[in-house]
């Protein structure tokens, strides 16, 4: 057990599965000697060699396609795309190949691959390096989509993703990567957290806040502030996996608190939390004491200028205001 950042925890997960299973290998741009754009794979080339830590050309389509083909024929590839925005360059491989192979083949063949990519804003990378695209991936049957919120979860969910027999889009929030504030005690060795199981990150009785990834951390901070300021007791539900979705943990929470607010960084129109609110409304309307609310990114690209970026993204203040609104205290 040692204190690791989110990024170090993922690296530790990669190292553990590569030590355990010789069918696991990694491919991506600048992941070798350079250690990846965020140094996530730093040291892995020295440890595992160039056959298993494979630097590729800037060719997102064939990086993802090669992962699909090697997965179909017996390997467990980890493909890294430098920023989740760049998956757009290889989207056919995700949408038409990885996701559909098993179904199209009538249940024969499986695609046990992980497509890892840093995601999200808050780092000043601008419109092509900051998007939150999880709703697009989650809308494609055949894919699993994972968005960890903390170092402990990141490692456990990552190891589960590698051993899952389906294509998993593993979205890592770049703002969490190296932030010491979010470093955590992470066990050494292999441990897993099942995909499709959420977790109550803060128990409370007044309102259910549903979030994933970095928005869980922001929601927790907002919850603590409101508890201190106004004794409002928020429950924060970290869904951890976008698809499959643990709707049960959300429903249980909403049945307890009677109120729902969802927080996400993605643009609100057509967002994933729209799906969450729909399902809760369909399945637990009678338990709801107030209309649900969604705090999301504004409907525009993620801008570059720091003040504009902050304006576009959900903030602790926006989350606090949302909670007060749902509770009728604004």
């Amino acid at each position: 057990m040692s204190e690791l950042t989110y990024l170090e925890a993922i690296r530790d997960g990669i190292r553990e599965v590569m030590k355990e299973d010789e069918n696991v290998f990694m491919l991506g741009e600048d992941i070798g000697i350079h250690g990846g754009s965020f140094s996530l794979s730093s040291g892995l080339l020295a440890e595992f060699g160039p056959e298993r830590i494979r630097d590729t050309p800037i060719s997102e389509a064939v990086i993802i396609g090669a992962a699909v083909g090697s997965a179909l024929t017996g390997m467990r590839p980890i493909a890294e795309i430098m920023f989740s925005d760049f998956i757009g360059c290889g989207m056919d491989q995700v949408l038409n190949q990885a996701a559909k192979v098993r179904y199209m083949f009538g249940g024969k063949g499986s695609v046990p691959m992980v497509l890892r990519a840093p995601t999200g804003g808050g780092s000043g990378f601008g419109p092509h390096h900051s998007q939150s695209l999880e709703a697009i991936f989650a809308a494609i049957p055949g894919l699993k989509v994972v968005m960890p919120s903390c170092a402990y979860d990141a490692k456990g969910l990552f190891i589960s993703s590698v051993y899952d027999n389906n294509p998993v889009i593993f979205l890592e929030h770049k703002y969490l990567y190296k932030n010491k504030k979010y470093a955590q005690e992470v066990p050494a060795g292999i441990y897993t957290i099942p995909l499709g199981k959420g977790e109550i990150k803060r128990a409370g009785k007044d309102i259910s806040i549903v979030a994933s990834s970095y928005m869980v951390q922001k929601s927790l901070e907002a919850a603590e502030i409101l508890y201190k300021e106004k004794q409002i007791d928020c429950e924060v539900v970290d869904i951890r996996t976008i698809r499959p979705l643990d709707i049960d943990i959300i429903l249980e929470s909403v049945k307890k608190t009677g109120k729902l607010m969802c927080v996400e960084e993605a643009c609100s129109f057509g967002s994933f939390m729209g799906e969450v609110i729909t399902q809760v409304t369909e399945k637990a309307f009678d338990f709801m004491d107030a209309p649900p609310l969604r705090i999301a990114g504004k409907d525009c690209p993620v801008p570059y200028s720091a003040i504009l970026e902050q304006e576009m993204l959900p903030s602790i203040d926006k989350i606090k205001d949302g909670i007060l609104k749902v509770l009728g205290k604004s």
Partner: protein
Amino acid sequence: MKECKVRECVLIKEKLTDLSGYKIADRYSGLAKEVKIEMLKKMYQIRYFENEAEQFILKGMIYGTCHLYIGEEANAVGAINAIRKDDWIASHHRGHGHCITKGSDINIMMAELIGKGNGYCKGKGGSMHIADMDTNNLGANGIVGGGMGVAVGAALTNKLKKKDGVVICFIGDASTNTGIFHESLNLASVWKLPLIYYCENNQYGMSTAIKNSTNIKNLSERKASYGIEGVTIDGNNVVDVYNVVSYFAQECRAGKGPVLIEGLTYRHRGHSRHDQQFYRTKDEVEQWKEHDPIKRYQEFLIESGLLTADEAQKIENEAIADIKAAAVFAENSPYPDLKEVDTDVYAD
């Protein structure tokens, strides 16, 4: 075998031996007579399978679309016979011929074509998605160039597992203008993967002639960009296809990296079910039909004394009977259980 003189770009058998300096041995001659005859049988089987599929289209039994391989049989049969059973193939939307040659069951294939529950994909894929993992067939693909990433992955598996297997990635002429074509050939060449790109140049991407969409004469010239080997051959000559793929498969197994083979060929039918073929003349079609790969190979076998005309007729009749039986099998097969509609989306 008679030369094929349609279009100036078609290369002739005797040039193969000195083509770009490759010393392509005649491995075909050393094959057992049974294998040579079997190749003719497969070509007939594909031809009549496609004829029957066409009948299914006309009878309205094929829901959606279907792309026929009639006229291109020598490519699949020559190429796949030149590799081993444990080698992989990836195919494209005109993929029935590859599937049959790799060893799939024509009954189960036919059932898939008409959406039956016992088809290769349980009726979920149809003509454009037939795959058969048991025969190491990574499947047809509804996206032009869609198999080109997957094939790189399969070849990478061979390399990482230190197997001497090769992969044939069948593509069409039009796929050479997609982005994945470049990414795939480039990566395979950098990693020296055991991958044979076999481009079936049937002259048209749907209605667009390759000469109108591509500014080079032979598509195999693209090899220069990747520093790999490649040739353009007569894809309607099954002996040439066999010899060339045999040669390059051996090179691939020896670790020399990927290769780009262009087989010049022609589809006798339109692109798919609705195609009035305004883009080509009847004369052109008739000219190519004179170089029908089955007719040429059968004449060659008879001239070589390996087959009599009567025996050839018998082979053709057997293919017709087998395919009729497959059609009956498919028609009598049950439709999928509706409960199957959303199964097989995820693996356990």
